[in-house]
């Protein structure tokens, strides 16, 4: 048995190495969630519009993002963005753009399921009242769809927070990297990996408990 010495884990270590990584991971998660929901809603509306010129690009985009590993998507964007804008880009910005684009595909599937879960009679009633498509979406369908989908959004956000650890591939300084560098500097890699796992576990487990509690409160009783 190996004896673990966790005494080195103090506030100083936390603020020097890990806080920066934690802030980046949280920031990446928040940006990707917000951007993903916005673009995902657009993609879902494109797909449900019934016009092939809008639907097929949306379907194509979503299927591509769902069939490639996230690490490959991260590498692709890290390669292509400097090619397209002509100058090198930092790993942080590249990671943010990648995650927004990637999560938009997944959120669009959630939003599409949410819109399709709203009874069709709502749309017909809106049309009977003389509302346009935009008014129908904005005042009738989307509010109900989003309320149904809040627990699923939050679950997806938890998964997204876990996936931010994959920016390891391009060397961005996230929570995992912070723990790794702390471990290398203090010469205790084993303890820091265990602490990293424990940190992720505590954060994700607490959030999923909160999601379960919210799920009970938010459900629309029909």
């Amino acid at each position: 048995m190996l004896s673990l010495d966790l005494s080195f884990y103090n506030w100083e270590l936390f603020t020097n190495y890990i806080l920066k990584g934690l802030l980046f991971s949280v920031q990446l998660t928040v940006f990707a969630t917000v951007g993903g929901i916005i673009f995902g809603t657009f993609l879902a509306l494109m797909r449900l519009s019934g016009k092939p010129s809008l639907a097929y690009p949306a379907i194509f985009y979503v299927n591509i993002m769902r069939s490639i590993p996230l690490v490959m998507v991260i590498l692709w964007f890290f390669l292509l963005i400097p090619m397209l804008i002509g100058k090198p880009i930092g790993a942080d910005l590249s990671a943010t753009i990648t995650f927004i684009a990637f999560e938009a595909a997944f959120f669009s599937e959630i939003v599409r399921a949410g819109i399709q879960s709203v009874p069709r009679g709502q749309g017909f009633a809106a049309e009977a009242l003389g509302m346009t498509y935009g008014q129908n979406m904005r005042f009738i369908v989307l509010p109900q769809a989003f309320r149904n989908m809040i627990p699923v959004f939050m679950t997806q956000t938890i998964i997204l927070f876990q996936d931010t650890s994959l920016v390891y591939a391009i060397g961005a300084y996230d929570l995992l990297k912070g723990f790794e560098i702390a471990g290398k500097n203090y010469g205790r890699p084993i303890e820091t990996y265990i602490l990293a796992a424990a940190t992720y576990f505590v954060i994700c487990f607490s959030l999923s408990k909160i999601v379960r509690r919210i799920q009970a409160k938010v459900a629309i009783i029909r």
Partner: protein
Amino acid sequence: MALDLGVFCKNTLDGEVVDHCFSALFGLGQNADPSYLDWLLKAWGWTLAVAGLGLLIALVLGAAMGTLRTLPDTGRSSRVLVRLSTAWVELFRNIPILVQVFLWYHVIPAFIPPLKAFPSYWLVSIALGFFTSARIAEQVRAGIQALPSGQRAAATALGLTTAQSYRYVILPMALRIVIPPLTSESMNLIKNSSVAFAVSVPELTLFAMQAQEETSHGVEIYLAVTLLYALSAFAVNRAMAFIEKRSRIPGFIAPTNDAGAH
């Protein structure tokens, strides 16, 4: 932006074009210098090996844990087993896959010395297998709970023990219900095998990173790797569709339960 697909026939050692590009694969033919195409196909083999071993571990453990979560409350031992499997699922779902790979590769061999003798890709497969087993356990549990409760009651009425009722009544039906979600889990497993790059398993993602640095023809390399990942996922999808068709029970319409994205 022109694509130079000839990069695949280049020698990995000095960048010269290999004479017999296709017959030089795997060291066959006169000219046995490794080309990028050769390296790509070997990396693909590694990806499939890691994913295949991981899938095996995941199916066995996931089915076991999922079954344990649905045990009826017959006393202290069944309650302990239910809590154990719930803890298992929560533990492996809430830690990212990359962190789990690092744990299995760096941390656990320090605690269990026999693991140090394992080749590195076994440890990655074990990590992948345990991660995916938590998700498969949830789906198996959903599948078992989708069965009408009358099935268990009838099994008890016939005098079957719990183990017998699972073996002869519940699991045969539940595992058939679970095949569609298992298909998407297997495709996810192929994608998740890409995290093996972090511990230098020579699979497709590591090939992509290294070859892109060496040749600076990143777009062609990444395109080929992406294509192979998509092809592998598609092949798994078709294989599972074949299994589903062969194991179908005539007249039984499974209650489908699509749990959303990811």
